[in-house]
C-alpha cells in the first residue's frame, strides 16, 4: 500500500520490530521519537487516534497507540516500551492531538504512567472513588 511505503520511507529510521498484517502495522518507537511519529501520522497522513492501550509485561510497561487511517482502513500502531516500571514516564502527545488528553489521563489513572507535558495529569476514572487503591490495573504480588 502506498501509504505504508511512504510512511516507512519517511519514518523508517525511527521504527524497529515491525510486524505487518493485513491492514495492521505494529512497530516499536522510542520515547524520544514518539512525538515525531504521532505528528507525522496525525498531521501529515491524516490518521485519527482511536485510542492507546497500556500493558504491563515482563520487560516493562508497553503503550500501544492505535492510529486509524480511515480512508483505507489501515491501522498504524506505534509501541513505546517503558523499562522503568517503578516510575514510568513518557512524552505526552496531547499537544499534537487534543483527543489524546483523556486517553493519557486514563492510562495515568489505571497504570500510573506519567505523561510529560500533559496539561492536566490527574485521574480520570478513579478521581472520586472512595477507596485508596491507586493504579488498579498494575500487577500486584499476591493480588
Amino acid at each position, binding site marked *: 500500500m502506498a501509504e505504508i511505503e511512504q510512511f516507512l520511507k519517511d519514518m523508517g529510521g525511527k521504527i524497529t520490530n515491525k510486524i505487518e*498484517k*493485513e*491492514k*495492521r502495522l*505494529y512497530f516499536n518507537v522510542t520515547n524520544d521519537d514518539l512525538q515525531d511519529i504521532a505528528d507525522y501520522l496525525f498531521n501529515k497522513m491524516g490518521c*485519527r*487516534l*482511536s*485510542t492507546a*492501550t497500556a*500493558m504491563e509485561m515482563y520487560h516493562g510497561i508497553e503503550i*500501544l497507540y*492505535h492510529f*486509524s487511517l*480511515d*480512508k*483505507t*482502513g489501515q*491501522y498504524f*500502531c506505534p509501541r513505546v516500551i517503558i523499562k522503568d516500571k517503578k516510575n514510568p514516564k513518557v512524552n505526552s502527545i496531547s499537544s499534537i*492531538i*487534543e*483527543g*489524546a*488528553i*483523556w486517553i493519557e489521563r486514563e492510562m495515568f489513572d489505571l497504570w500510573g504512567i506519567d505523561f510529560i507535558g500533559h496539561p492536566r495529569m490527574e*485521574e*480520570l*476514572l*478513579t*478521581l*472520586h*472513588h472512595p477507596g485508596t487503591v491507586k493504579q*488498579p*490495573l498494575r500487577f500486584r504480588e499476591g493480588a
Partner: protein
Amino acid sequence: MKANKIPIGPFHPLLEEAEYFELKVEGETVVDIDMEIGWMHRGHEYISEMKTFTQSIYLVERICGICSTSHPLACVHAVEDIDNIEIPLRARYIRTLVGELERIHSHLLWIGLAGHFIGYDTLWMWVWKYREPVLEMFEIISGNRNHYGMMRVGGVAKDVEPEKITELYKHLDMIEKKMVMVANVVRDDPVLRSRLKGVGVLTHEAAVAYCATGPTSRASGVPWDVRRDEPTDAYDLVDFEVIVLPNGDVYDKAVVRVLEVIESCKIIRQCLEKLKTAQGSILNNVKEISPGEGIGRYEAPRGEVFHYIRSDGTNRPIRHKVRAPSFVNIPTFTASCKGIPIADALITLASVDPCYCCTERSLKIIDSSCESRQIDLLKSSREKTERIRREVHGN
C-alpha cells in the same frame, strides 16, 4: 461579568448514567465547560482477563444496554483478527442484520429524547412507538429484546429461519414507511429547523482534533464510517450510503441519524433477501486462538467501538482494551458548548448521544458558596422552542 457555575450531575435526572458537567456561565452564555467521569467504572477490562474468549463476549455485551451488539461484534472481530478467522457467509449477513437493527433502535431512542428536551413530546412518543417493533424484531431473531447473545468467535449463535424472515419483513415494511415520515418531519418542520440550526456547532477542525467518531463527526463533514472504510461481516456485500453533512450543529446531527435509520432499513432488507438463499453453516468451529494481538472495531450507533485483544495462546486474553465512542465524543463539548446560551446547553450535551434520559432541575451555585436557586434546564430549553414556534407560526 462575574462567571457562575452550574453543576449537572453526577446524579441528576438529565443523566441516564452518572457523569458530571460543570457549566461556567456569564449571564445566559456558557463560557466554559468541565467534565468528569468515573462513577460508572466497572473494571470490564480487568474482569475480561479472567474470562475465556467466549465469556468475554457476554461480558462486553453488558457494557452498554443500547450497544449490546456493537461491543460483542468488535470483541469477536478482535479475536478473529489474531488468526484471520473466516466467517460463514450466512453468519455475516446475520451479524449485519442485528447490527443495523441496533442502529435503528439506538437512533430512534435519541431522536425521541431530543424531541422531548426541546418540547416536542409528540415526536418523542411517536418515535418510541416505532422503536417497539424493532425490539420485537430482536425478539424474533434472538429470543431477547435486549442482550441478544448472538455473537460468537467464528460466526453467530442462532440462525434466522425462513418463517422468521417473513415475519421480519412485515415489521420492516412498517418501520421503513414510518421512518421516511419521521425524516420528512425532522427536515421540513420550520420550528425544528430554527430551533436546532446553528446550535452547538462542532467545527470540522474540532471534530478532527478531538478524534470524534460516528454521527458526531459525520455531521461536521468528517466522512469516516467503519462499515465502509474497513468493511467486516456483510458490509462489503450490501449497498448503503454514508450520511455526511457539513455544518456540525445539532440539526445536522439529528438529520444524520434520521437518514442513517433509513439506510439501515435498506441494509436490513438486503440482508433478509440474501438470507433466503445463502445456505450453509452459521458458525466455524474455532478450537484455539494463537498467541498474538488483534484489533476489532465496529461502527456502533454512536461511533467507532474499538477493542484490542492480546492472546498468549491460552483460552483467555492477557489484555483486553475497550474504547467506546462516547469516550472520544464527550470531550468535544469543550469545543461545541462555548458561547452558546444556557437554553441550548441541554440539547448540545444531548447531541452526541452520551446516554442520558431527561432533565428537570439543576442547582446553581454562585461563587461556590451555599447560596443557590433552582433553575430548570429542560424548561429553559422548551421555552426557547416555544418562542421560536410563536415567531414562525405567529400565535
